Protein backbone atom coordinates (compact mmCIF):
# COMPACT_ATOMS: atom_id res chain seq x y z
CA UNK A 1 0.00 0.00 0.00
CA UNK A 2 2.83 2.42 0.69
CA UNK A 3 5.13 3.76 -2.01
CA UNK A 4 8.86 4.34 -1.86
CA UNK A 5 9.80 6.11 1.38
CA UNK A 6 10.61 9.36 -0.39
CA UNK A 7 7.45 9.66 -2.51
CA UNK A 8 5.83 13.04 -1.83
CA UNK A 9 2.05 13.38 -1.39
CA UNK A 10 0.45 12.86 -4.81
CA UNK A 11 -1.28 16.24 -4.58
CA UNK A 12 2.12 17.94 -4.96
CA UNK A 13 2.50 16.31 -8.40
CA UNK A 14 -0.88 17.65 -9.48
CA UNK A 15 -0.03 21.12 -8.19
CA UNK A 16 3.37 21.21 -9.87
CA UNK A 17 2.82 19.43 -13.19
CA UNK A 18 -0.81 19.44 -14.31
CA UNK A 19 -0.21 22.66 -16.28
CA UNK A 20 2.49 20.97 -18.36
CA UNK A 21 0.45 17.79 -18.82
CA UNK A 22 -2.58 19.85 -19.88
CA UNK A 23 -0.49 21.83 -22.40
CA UNK A 24 0.84 18.58 -23.85
CA UNK A 25 -2.65 17.11 -24.18
CA UNK A 26 -3.94 20.31 -25.82
CA UNK A 27 -1.26 19.81 -28.44
CA UNK A 28 -2.31 16.20 -28.95
CA UNK A 29 -6.11 16.08 -28.72
CA UNK A 30 -9.27 17.95 -29.70
CA UNK A 31 -10.46 20.47 -27.11
CA UNK A 32 -13.45 18.38 -26.10
CA UNK A 33 -11.19 15.48 -25.06
CA UNK A 34 -8.52 17.35 -23.11
CA UNK A 35 -10.23 17.62 -19.74
CA UNK A 36 -11.16 13.95 -19.62
CA UNK A 37 -7.70 12.85 -20.80
CA UNK A 38 -6.12 15.00 -18.08
CA UNK A 39 -8.30 13.33 -15.42
CA UNK A 40 -7.57 9.89 -16.87
CA UNK A 41 -3.85 10.63 -16.81
CA UNK A 42 -3.86 11.71 -13.17
CA UNK A 43 -6.06 8.80 -12.15
CA UNK A 44 -3.75 6.29 -13.90
CA UNK A 45 -0.75 7.98 -12.27
CA UNK A 46 -2.36 7.77 -8.82
CA UNK A 47 -3.06 4.09 -9.41
CA UNK A 48 0.56 3.42 -10.41
CA UNK A 49 2.07 5.79 -7.82
CA UNK A 50 3.12 3.16 -5.25
CA UNK A 51 5.41 1.61 -7.89
CA UNK A 52 6.82 4.92 -9.17
CA UNK A 53 10.57 5.24 -8.58
CA UNK A 54 10.37 8.94 -7.70
CA UNK A 55 12.69 10.16 -10.46
CA UNK A 56 11.45 12.96 -12.71
CA UNK A 57 7.72 13.02 -11.97
CA UNK A 58 7.02 15.40 -14.88
CA UNK A 59 8.45 13.02 -17.49
CA UNK A 60 6.63 10.12 -15.80
CA UNK A 61 3.28 11.95 -15.96
CA UNK A 62 3.90 12.93 -19.59
CA UNK A 63 4.58 9.29 -20.48
CA UNK A 64 1.20 8.35 -19.04
CA UNK A 65 -0.46 11.31 -20.81
CA UNK A 66 1.07 10.25 -24.13
CA UNK A 67 -0.36 6.73 -23.74
CA UNK A 68 -3.79 8.22 -22.96
CA UNK A 69 -3.56 10.45 -26.04
CA UNK A 70 -2.59 7.50 -28.24
CA UNK A 71 -5.46 5.40 -26.83
CA UNK A 72 -7.77 8.27 -27.69
CA UNK A 73 -6.36 8.50 -31.24
CA UNK A 74 -6.90 4.78 -31.75
CA UNK A 75 -10.46 5.03 -30.49
CA UNK A 76 -11.02 7.92 -32.89
CA UNK A 77 -9.58 6.15 -35.91
CA UNK A 78 -12.33 3.58 -35.42
CA UNK A 79 -14.84 6.44 -35.51
CA UNK A 80 -14.00 8.11 -38.82
CA UNK A 81 -16.67 10.77 -38.49
CA UNK A 82 -14.87 12.30 -35.49
CA UNK A 83 -12.71 15.36 -35.88
CA UNK A 84 -9.03 14.73 -35.36
CA UNK A 85 -7.89 18.31 -35.03
CA UNK A 86 -5.97 19.02 -31.87
CA UNK A 87 -7.36 21.80 -29.71
CA UNK A 88 -4.41 23.91 -30.80
CA UNK A 89 -5.98 24.02 -34.28
CA UNK A 90 -9.64 24.18 -33.44
CA UNK A 91 -9.65 27.00 -30.92
CA UNK A 92 -6.45 28.90 -31.51
CA UNK A 93 -7.53 31.40 -34.13
CA UNK A 94 -8.17 34.21 -31.68
CA UNK A 95 -4.88 33.86 -29.83
CA UNK A 96 -2.04 36.27 -30.33
CA UNK A 97 1.06 34.80 -31.93
CA UNK A 98 -0.80 31.69 -32.96
CA UNK A 99 -0.07 30.15 -36.34
CA UNK A 100 -3.06 28.04 -37.32
CA UNK A 101 -1.56 26.74 -40.58
CA UNK A 102 1.64 25.58 -38.97
CA UNK A 103 -0.10 23.91 -36.01
CA UNK A 104 -2.64 22.40 -38.38
CA UNK A 105 0.26 20.60 -40.02
CA UNK A 106 1.63 19.58 -36.62
CA UNK A 107 -1.76 17.97 -36.00
CA UNK A 108 -1.33 15.90 -39.17
CA UNK A 109 2.06 14.45 -38.12
CA UNK A 110 2.33 10.83 -36.93
CA UNK A 111 1.48 10.73 -33.18
CA UNK A 112 5.04 10.15 -31.95
CA UNK A 113 6.43 13.04 -33.99
CA UNK A 114 3.57 15.28 -32.98
CA UNK A 115 4.22 14.41 -29.32
CA UNK A 116 7.94 15.12 -29.77
CA UNK A 117 7.21 18.54 -31.32
CA UNK A 118 4.75 19.52 -28.57
CA UNK A 119 7.13 18.39 -25.80
CA UNK A 120 10.12 20.10 -27.36
CA UNK A 121 8.56 23.42 -28.40
CA UNK A 122 5.44 23.91 -26.27
CA UNK A 123 6.85 22.53 -23.02
CA UNK A 124 10.41 23.53 -23.81
CA UNK A 125 11.82 20.18 -22.62
CA UNK A 126 15.38 19.09 -23.29
CA UNK A 127 15.77 16.13 -25.65
CA UNK A 128 16.73 13.88 -22.74
CA UNK A 129 13.36 14.58 -21.10
CA UNK A 130 11.48 14.34 -24.41
CA UNK A 131 13.03 10.86 -24.70
CA UNK A 132 11.93 9.93 -21.16
CA UNK A 133 8.37 11.02 -21.88
CA UNK A 134 8.32 9.13 -25.20
CA UNK A 135 9.95 5.97 -23.79
CA UNK A 136 12.84 6.29 -26.24
CA UNK A 137 16.46 7.40 -26.26
CA UNK A 138 17.57 11.01 -26.35
CA UNK A 139 18.91 10.40 -29.87
CA UNK A 140 15.60 8.95 -31.02
CA UNK A 141 13.75 11.93 -29.52
CA UNK A 142 16.03 14.26 -31.47
CA UNK A 143 15.40 12.27 -34.67
CA UNK A 144 11.64 12.46 -34.20
CA UNK A 145 11.76 16.23 -33.83
CA UNK A 146 14.11 16.65 -36.82
CA UNK A 147 11.96 14.39 -38.94
CA UNK A 148 8.88 16.40 -37.98
CA UNK A 149 10.57 19.71 -38.70
CA UNK A 150 11.68 18.43 -42.11
CA UNK A 151 8.12 17.37 -42.94
CA UNK A 152 6.74 20.71 -41.79
CA UNK A 153 9.32 22.65 -43.80
CA UNK A 154 8.58 20.65 -46.95
CA UNK A 155 4.84 21.19 -46.54
CA UNK A 156 5.29 24.90 -45.96
CA UNK A 157 7.52 25.29 -49.02
CA UNK A 158 5.20 23.25 -51.22
CA UNK A 159 2.35 25.52 -50.21
CA UNK A 160 4.37 28.63 -51.04
CA UNK A 161 5.14 27.31 -54.53
CA UNK A 162 1.48 26.63 -55.16
CA UNK A 163 0.61 30.24 -54.48
Amino acid at each position, binding site marked *: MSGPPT*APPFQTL*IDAHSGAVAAFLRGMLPAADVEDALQETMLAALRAYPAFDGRNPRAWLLTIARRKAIDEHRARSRRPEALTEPEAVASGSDRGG*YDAELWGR*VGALPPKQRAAVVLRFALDLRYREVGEALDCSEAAARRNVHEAVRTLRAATEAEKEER
Partner: protein
Amino acid sequence: MNIENDLKSTARAATAAPTDLEGLSAAVGRRAAADGILDLAYAEIDSPLGTLLAVATPQGLVHLGYPDRPVADQLELLAARISPRILESARDLDRARRQLDEYFAGRRRRFDLDLDWQLSAGFVRSVLERTAAIPFGETRTYGEMAAAAGSPRAFRAAGRALGANPIPIVVPCHRVLRSGGALGGYGGGLDVKRELLTLEGVL
Protein backbone atom coordinates in the same frame (compact mmCIF):
# COMPACT_ATOMS: atom_id res chain seq x y z
CA MET B 1 12.05 30.38 -43.27
CA ASN B 2 12.93 28.83 -39.93
CA ILE B 3 10.31 26.30 -38.86
CA GLU B 4 11.89 25.65 -35.45
CA ASN B 5 11.74 29.33 -34.52
CA ASP B 6 8.14 29.55 -35.72
CA LEU B 7 7.22 26.51 -33.64
CA LYS B 8 8.94 27.94 -30.57
CA SER B 9 7.37 31.37 -30.88
CA THR B 10 3.83 30.09 -31.48
CA ALA B 11 3.72 26.96 -29.33
CA ARG B 12 2.64 28.61 -26.12
CA ALA B 13 -0.25 30.35 -27.81
CA ALA B 14 -1.20 27.01 -29.37
CA THR B 15 -1.29 24.98 -26.15
CA ALA B 16 -1.41 27.29 -23.14
CA ALA B 17 -4.67 27.68 -21.25
CA PRO B 18 -5.47 28.06 -17.57
CA THR B 19 -5.82 24.75 -15.76
CA ASP B 20 -8.50 24.53 -13.08
CA LEU B 21 -6.42 22.82 -10.38
CA GLU B 22 -9.16 22.67 -7.79
CA GLY B 23 -11.65 21.22 -10.26
CA LEU B 24 -9.10 18.69 -11.47
CA SER B 25 -8.17 17.57 -7.94
CA ALA B 26 -11.82 17.27 -6.98
CA ALA B 27 -12.69 15.23 -10.07
CA VAL B 28 -9.67 12.94 -9.70
CA GLY B 29 -10.40 12.59 -5.97
CA ARG B 30 -14.01 11.59 -6.63
CA ARG B 31 -13.06 8.98 -9.22
CA ALA B 32 -10.11 7.69 -7.17
CA ALA B 33 -12.29 7.24 -4.09
CA ALA B 34 -14.85 5.34 -6.17
CA ASP B 35 -12.05 3.09 -7.49
CA GLY B 36 -10.64 2.55 -3.99
CA ILE B 37 -7.23 4.05 -4.81
CA LEU B 38 -7.42 7.22 -2.70
CA ASP B 39 -5.66 6.32 0.54
CA LEU B 40 -5.76 9.77 2.18
CA ALA B 41 -7.98 12.81 1.62
CA TYR B 42 -7.25 16.14 3.28
CA ALA B 43 -8.77 19.56 3.80
CA GLU B 44 -7.77 22.69 5.63
CA ILE B 45 -10.41 23.77 8.13
CA ASP B 46 -10.71 27.29 9.55
CA SER B 47 -11.14 27.48 13.31
CA PRO B 48 -10.69 29.99 16.16
CA LEU B 49 -7.37 28.22 16.81
CA GLY B 50 -6.16 28.87 13.27
CA THR B 51 -6.26 26.63 10.21
CA LEU B 52 -6.45 22.94 11.11
CA LEU B 53 -5.33 20.18 8.75
CA ALA B 54 -7.85 17.34 8.69
CA VAL B 55 -6.87 14.06 7.03
CA ALA B 56 -9.01 10.96 6.52
CA THR B 57 -8.56 7.44 5.22
CA PRO B 58 -11.55 5.48 3.85
CA GLN B 59 -11.94 4.22 7.46
CA GLY B 60 -12.20 7.65 9.06
CA LEU B 61 -10.42 10.68 10.46
CA VAL B 62 -6.78 9.76 11.03
CA HIS B 63 -5.05 13.09 11.72
CA LEU B 64 -5.98 16.57 12.86
CA GLY B 65 -3.04 18.99 12.80
CA TYR B 66 -2.55 22.33 14.54
CA PRO B 67 -1.32 25.33 12.54
CA ASP B 68 2.07 25.44 14.29
CA ARG B 69 3.35 22.77 11.90
CA PRO B 70 3.57 23.44 8.14
CA VAL B 71 0.91 21.56 6.16
CA ALA B 72 3.53 20.24 3.72
CA ASP B 73 5.54 18.70 6.60
CA GLN B 74 2.46 17.03 8.07
CA LEU B 75 1.44 15.59 4.69
CA GLU B 76 4.95 14.32 3.97
CA LEU B 77 5.00 12.52 7.30
CA LEU B 78 1.61 10.93 6.54
CA ALA B 79 2.81 9.99 3.04
CA ALA B 80 5.69 8.09 4.65
CA ARG B 81 3.66 6.55 7.49
CA ILE B 82 0.46 5.63 5.64
CA SER B 83 0.56 6.16 1.87
CA PRO B 84 1.61 8.85 -0.64
CA ARG B 85 -1.71 8.48 -2.47
CA ILE B 86 -2.95 11.74 -0.98
CA LEU B 87 -5.32 14.28 -2.56
CA GLU B 88 -6.93 17.45 -1.32
CA SER B 89 -10.63 16.71 -1.14
CA ALA B 90 -12.80 19.06 0.91
CA ARG B 91 -15.84 16.90 0.23
CA ASP B 92 -14.40 13.93 2.14
CA LEU B 93 -13.85 16.11 5.23
CA ASP B 94 -17.19 17.94 5.11
CA ARG B 95 -18.65 16.10 8.06
CA ALA B 96 -15.59 16.75 10.23
CA ARG B 97 -15.59 20.41 9.20
CA ARG B 98 -19.25 20.84 10.09
CA GLN B 99 -18.87 19.18 13.48
CA LEU B 100 -15.76 21.18 14.36
CA ASP B 101 -17.59 24.40 13.37
CA GLU B 102 -20.45 23.43 15.69
CA TYR B 103 -18.08 22.51 18.52
CA PHE B 104 -16.27 25.85 18.36
CA ALA B 105 -19.60 27.67 18.15
CA GLY B 106 -20.68 25.93 21.39
CA ARG B 107 -23.41 23.95 19.63
CA ARG B 108 -21.84 20.48 19.81
CA ARG B 109 -20.66 18.55 22.86
CA ARG B 110 -19.88 15.22 21.25
CA PHE B 111 -18.24 14.32 17.94
CA ASP B 112 -19.93 11.72 15.84
CA LEU B 113 -17.16 10.79 13.39
CA ASP B 114 -15.54 7.54 12.26
CA LEU B 115 -11.94 7.45 13.46
CA ASP B 116 -8.97 5.55 12.05
CA TRP B 117 -6.61 4.61 14.90
CA GLN B 118 -3.83 3.19 12.75
CA LEU B 119 -1.27 5.82 13.80
CA SER B 120 -1.48 4.67 17.42
CA ALA B 121 -0.69 1.23 18.79
CA GLY B 122 -0.52 -0.68 22.07
CA PHE B 123 -0.70 1.28 25.33
CA VAL B 124 -0.85 4.62 23.45
CA ARG B 125 -3.91 3.53 21.56
CA SER B 126 -5.47 2.11 24.67
CA VAL B 127 -5.04 5.45 26.49
CA LEU B 128 -6.36 7.44 23.52
CA GLU B 129 -9.43 5.24 23.04
CA ARG B 130 -10.36 5.78 26.67
CA THR B 131 -9.67 9.49 26.35
CA ALA B 132 -12.13 9.61 23.45
CA ALA B 133 -14.86 8.65 25.94
CA ILE B 134 -14.28 11.53 28.41
CA PRO B 135 -17.45 13.67 28.19
CA PHE B 136 -17.51 17.34 27.24
CA GLY B 137 -16.77 19.65 30.17
CA GLU B 138 -15.28 16.90 32.39
CA THR B 139 -11.63 16.22 33.18
CA ARG B 140 -9.49 13.26 34.23
CA THR B 141 -5.92 12.97 35.53
CA TYR B 142 -2.97 11.32 33.80
CA GLY B 143 -2.99 8.68 36.54
CA GLU B 144 -6.68 7.91 35.96
CA MET B 145 -6.05 7.45 32.24
CA ALA B 146 -3.08 5.17 32.94
CA ALA B 147 -5.23 3.10 35.28
CA ALA B 148 -8.07 2.98 32.76
CA ALA B 149 -5.62 1.65 30.19
CA GLY B 150 -4.54 -1.06 32.64
CA SER B 151 -1.26 0.35 34.04
CA PRO B 152 -2.07 2.52 37.08
CA ARG B 153 1.54 3.52 37.67
CA ALA B 154 2.30 4.47 34.08
CA PHE B 155 1.02 8.06 34.38
CA ARG B 156 4.12 9.46 32.64
CA ALA B 157 3.68 7.07 29.73
CA ALA B 158 0.02 8.11 29.65
CA GLY B 159 1.15 11.73 29.38
CA ARG B 160 3.42 10.84 26.47
CA ALA B 161 0.61 8.92 24.78
CA LEU B 162 -1.68 11.94 25.05
CA GLY B 163 1.10 14.16 23.70
CA ALA B 164 1.28 11.91 20.65
CA ASN B 165 -2.48 12.09 20.02
CA PRO B 166 -2.86 12.31 16.21
CA ILE B 167 -6.50 13.44 16.42
CA PRO B 168 -6.63 16.18 19.10
CA ILE B 169 -9.89 18.04 19.89
CA VAL B 170 -11.95 15.12 18.53
CA VAL B 171 -10.04 12.78 20.86
CA PRO B 172 -10.13 15.26 23.74
CA CYS B 173 -6.70 14.92 25.31
CA HIS B 174 -7.15 18.50 26.53
CA ARG B 175 -9.52 17.07 29.16
CA VAL B 176 -6.66 15.28 30.92
CA LEU B 177 -4.92 17.31 33.67
CA ARG B 178 -2.36 16.80 36.43
CA SER B 179 -3.70 15.35 39.68
CA GLY B 180 -3.40 18.71 41.49
CA GLY B 181 -5.51 20.40 38.83
CA ALA B 182 -2.52 21.96 36.99
CA LEU B 183 -2.91 21.94 33.22
CA GLY B 184 0.04 19.62 32.48
CA GLY B 185 1.19 19.61 28.86
CA TYR B 186 -0.43 19.87 25.45
CA GLY B 187 0.74 19.07 21.93
CA GLY B 188 -0.86 22.18 20.45
CA GLY B 189 0.54 24.44 23.19
CA LEU B 190 -0.86 25.28 26.64
CA ASP B 191 -2.72 28.35 25.32
CA VAL B 192 -4.76 26.08 23.10
CA LYS B 193 -5.48 23.70 25.98
CA ARG B 194 -6.64 26.65 28.10
CA GLU B 195 -8.85 27.92 25.27
CA LEU B 196 -10.52 24.54 24.78
CA LEU B 197 -11.15 24.08 28.51
CA THR B 198 -12.57 27.60 28.69
CA LEU B 199 -14.87 26.83 25.77
CA GLU B 200 -16.11 23.78 27.68
CA GLY B 201 -16.67 25.77 30.87
CA VAL B 202 -14.00 23.94 32.89
CA LEU B 203 -11.84 27.04 33.42
